[in-house]
């Protein structure tokens, strides 16, 4: 992983100055640190990995240890302006539960994930191997990812759960994709709200 991720720019655009922001799976706290610097947010990270939690503390951001699979119990309804989950949704078992929780405690949710339907991934499968790429950097036997889904799948899930897709941007390894994102984009970033 590079220390700078291009979905950060998109996410930053969607955050207004001074917002209350929760970053789920905040890792070393780089995104929060960035948002604190350029958006003066009141930011909190959530992390359950002790090494990453330590990195976040070293990075000077607020970080709270919590197991996201158990939801966001204890956090108040509608407390945050934005609840972010950057490239972590695919590593969670309780996909629907966490999306529901994000939109419970946040006015909006921002989610980015690797698109399993990306053409290179499809090509890889056609060639008989599980895809390994910049957006899916692990081998099948050591990946932390547990859910493999496409942009089309995620759209359908939002539709099914009454989650409003307010905005969606798709990228092919950093470059914006406007046509056929489910085929041409490696990563998608969504801005989600409650209701349709």
């Amino acid at each position, binding site marked *: 992983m590079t220390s700078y991720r291009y979905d950060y720019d998109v996410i930053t655009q969607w955050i207004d100055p001074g917002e209350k922001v929760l970053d789920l799976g905040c890792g070393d706290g780089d995104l929060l640190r960035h948002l604190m610097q350029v958006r003066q947010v*009141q930011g909190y990270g959530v992390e359950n990995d002790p090494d990453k*939690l330590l990195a976040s*503390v070293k990075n000077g951001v*607020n970080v709270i240890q919590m197991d996201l699979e158990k939801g966001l119990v*204890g*956090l108040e309804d509608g407390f945050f302006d934005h609840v972010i989950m950057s490239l972590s949704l695919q590593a969670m078992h309780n996909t629907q539960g966490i999306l529901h929780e994000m939109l419970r405690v946040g006015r909006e949710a921002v989610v980015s994930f690797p698109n399993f339907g990306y053409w290179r991934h499809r090509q890889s499968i056609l060639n008989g191997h599980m895809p390994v790429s910049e957006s899916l950097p692990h081998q099948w036997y050591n990946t932390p990812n547990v859910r493999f889904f496409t942009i089309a799948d995620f759209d359908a899930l939002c539709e099914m759960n009454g989650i409003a897709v307010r905005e969606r941007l798709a990228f092919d390894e950093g470059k914006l994709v406007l046509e056929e994102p489910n085929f041409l984009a490696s990563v998608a970033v969504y801005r989600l709200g409650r209701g349709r």
Partner: protein
Amino acid sequence: MIQPQSVGVVAPQRAEFTEPLALRSGGTLDNYHLVYETYGTLNAERSNAVLVCHALSGSHHVAGTYADAPHNVGWWDNLVGPGKPLDTRKFFVIGVNNLGGCYGSSGPNQMNPATGKLWGADFPFVTVEDWVESQARLADRLGIRRFAAVVGGSLGGMQALSWALQFPERVGHVAVIAAAPKLTAQNIAFNEVARQAILTDPEFHGGHYYEHGVVPARGLKLARMVGHITYLSDDSMAEKFGRSLRHGRNTYSYDVEFEIESYLRYQGDKFAGYFDANTYLLTTKALDYFDPAFEYGGNLPAALARASADFLVVSFTTDWRFSPERSREIVYALLHNKRRVSYAEIDCPAGHDSFLLDETRYHALLSAWFDRIEV
């Protein structure tokens, strides 16, 4: 980076106070003294002071050793010293024996100036808030207007939290470790068993046992045995003692059979040999009374609205005395108030006592947190 070192040989100091201290219990201490130790050097701006608050059986002797007692190592020596997480090359660290304690500060085993006799049971009830008030006066005496940090574990963590509420402008950072925003009925129940053990000891003499030349050692021993059970986890007891038998077989007697019995008796006897029963009573009551949310109708977020410090809250997975859920209550209440807070749940098998250990991740976290404090 240097190899972590001891602060070396230290000596306690004593501060006398003559301005009366009004206590939450309604009583007043007209004059009193506090015994304390310091490690490191107060900087010219007086901005690098850190107060370490002690728990039930702790003292002002946080780090280092004594010239005449080289084996008497401070109770949090693994935390405080040059190159240690609370680095005395950067910070000026203070440990205070709380009022009502038995290590030299005004308390039941000290002279009551009004009578010329030992206070005994006449020493007034003291609360966490009273301790914090007296610690603030000591800070005044040392010329410290604002602490860089106040830290503590267990009952010490409650004092640290109370500092953030009583003197928000006088503390920059607060670490609340293995603590709780108040005791549960179960916590109070364990304390009550401990107190009854002391109060019903025939040698307690209504708390004036000093005059009889005895101590209620049996009661104090039982109190400590009960306490010790709550400090350890089921797993750590199982690992350390399991069902090991002293004689390798059942002897069908009430002598020590299981190793855990031997351990508890030993800990109880040792404790009864040096701790004061009246202090134990007073301190368990201070624990029971602590409840900053009480005057806010039980609303902890409302109670913590006054706090402005940057918080670190730490709990331990196997601590059932003050479980992680209790620490999370504090975290959520701080979050509600949009305060700066980080929270870690340390995976450590040792139960409540974990906070005194130098578990790697725990100390790495404390190091990182202390590092980021600017003085």
